[in-house]
């Protein structure tokens, strides 16, 4: 079975990925991105294994959203630094994962 890879972000940032065979999904703001991800999780004709999302959209995810995205084994929803550079969200997310598992942030 073949899985799809998608990337969500502002149009200018992500369109380069289309040449690599990644499905590009433009979104302007966080709500739109969340809606798109929900849609992708629901669709049955295409199964997405990895959904990349640029940090500027991901940083305003609510906790409920994050929980919902983390729940299933697939897809993996991975924030990426955008063309504005890293906002530190991804690192913070990683720290949160560690904190959740261990009880305190041991990566520092």
């Amino acid at each position, binding site marked *: 079975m073949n899985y799809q890879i998608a990337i969500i972000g502002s149009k200018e940032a992500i369109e380069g990925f289309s040449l690599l*065979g990644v499905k590009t999904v433009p979104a302007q703001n966080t709500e739109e991105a969340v809606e798109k991800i929900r849609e992708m999780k629901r669709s049955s004709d295409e199964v997405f294994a990895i959904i990349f999302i640029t940090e500027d959209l991901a940083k305003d995810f609510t906790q409920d959203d994050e929980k919902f995205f983390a729940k299933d084994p697939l897809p993996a929803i991975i924030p990426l630094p955008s063309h504005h550079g890293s906002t530190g969200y991804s690192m913070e997310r990683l720290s949160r994962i560690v904190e959740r598992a*261990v009880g305190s942030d041991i990566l520092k």
Partner: protein
Amino acid sequence: MAILNVNPTRMALLDLKKRVKSAERGHKLLKDKQDGLMKHFMEIVRDAKKLREEVEEMLGDAFKKFLIASAWMKEADLRNALSSPQAKLALSVKTKNVMSVRIPFFELEKEGEIKTYGYAGTNALLDEAIDALNEAFEILIQLAQIEKQAEALAIELETTRRRVNALEHKMIPDLKDTVKYIRLKLDEGERSAIIGTMKVKAQIEAAA
């Protein structure tokens, strides 16, 4: 310290003793599971951090290259250049079961030419940018894999830790307290019965 709501009878005592035993057994098993998960988690999480740092650098670079390239091109030309991708990505996913957590392993197969645009209207910067993106992409897949693994393990670890703690600090002490309570109650009843019979006996002897 809380005593469960049970009748202090022999039946209840037997039942509770059984429950203490199985709770202790469950606690041990869960603790082992927690240790196993933790070991696995520790192995990957440091790699995850390293990989994440690498990606931040590479991708920021690649995005910048792409933006600069697109700034030099006409909107229509860029649209045109990007409009006919031929490369196909085949991603296969295998899942491995670690302590009943299913963690994914991604495997990427690329096919086809990436640079499916003509030389006219495009520039060398675009070539460079696409190369950079392509190079970064493999690491991105690895990152996705390892972060998803870490995430899945973290969720399971959290629930397991809660269960272990609940058993260790709540269930087992409560059960043990209740067993003790019933035992005291039963002993007390036994003593009171003996005293009762002794009293009766003494009265009968006094009357005779």
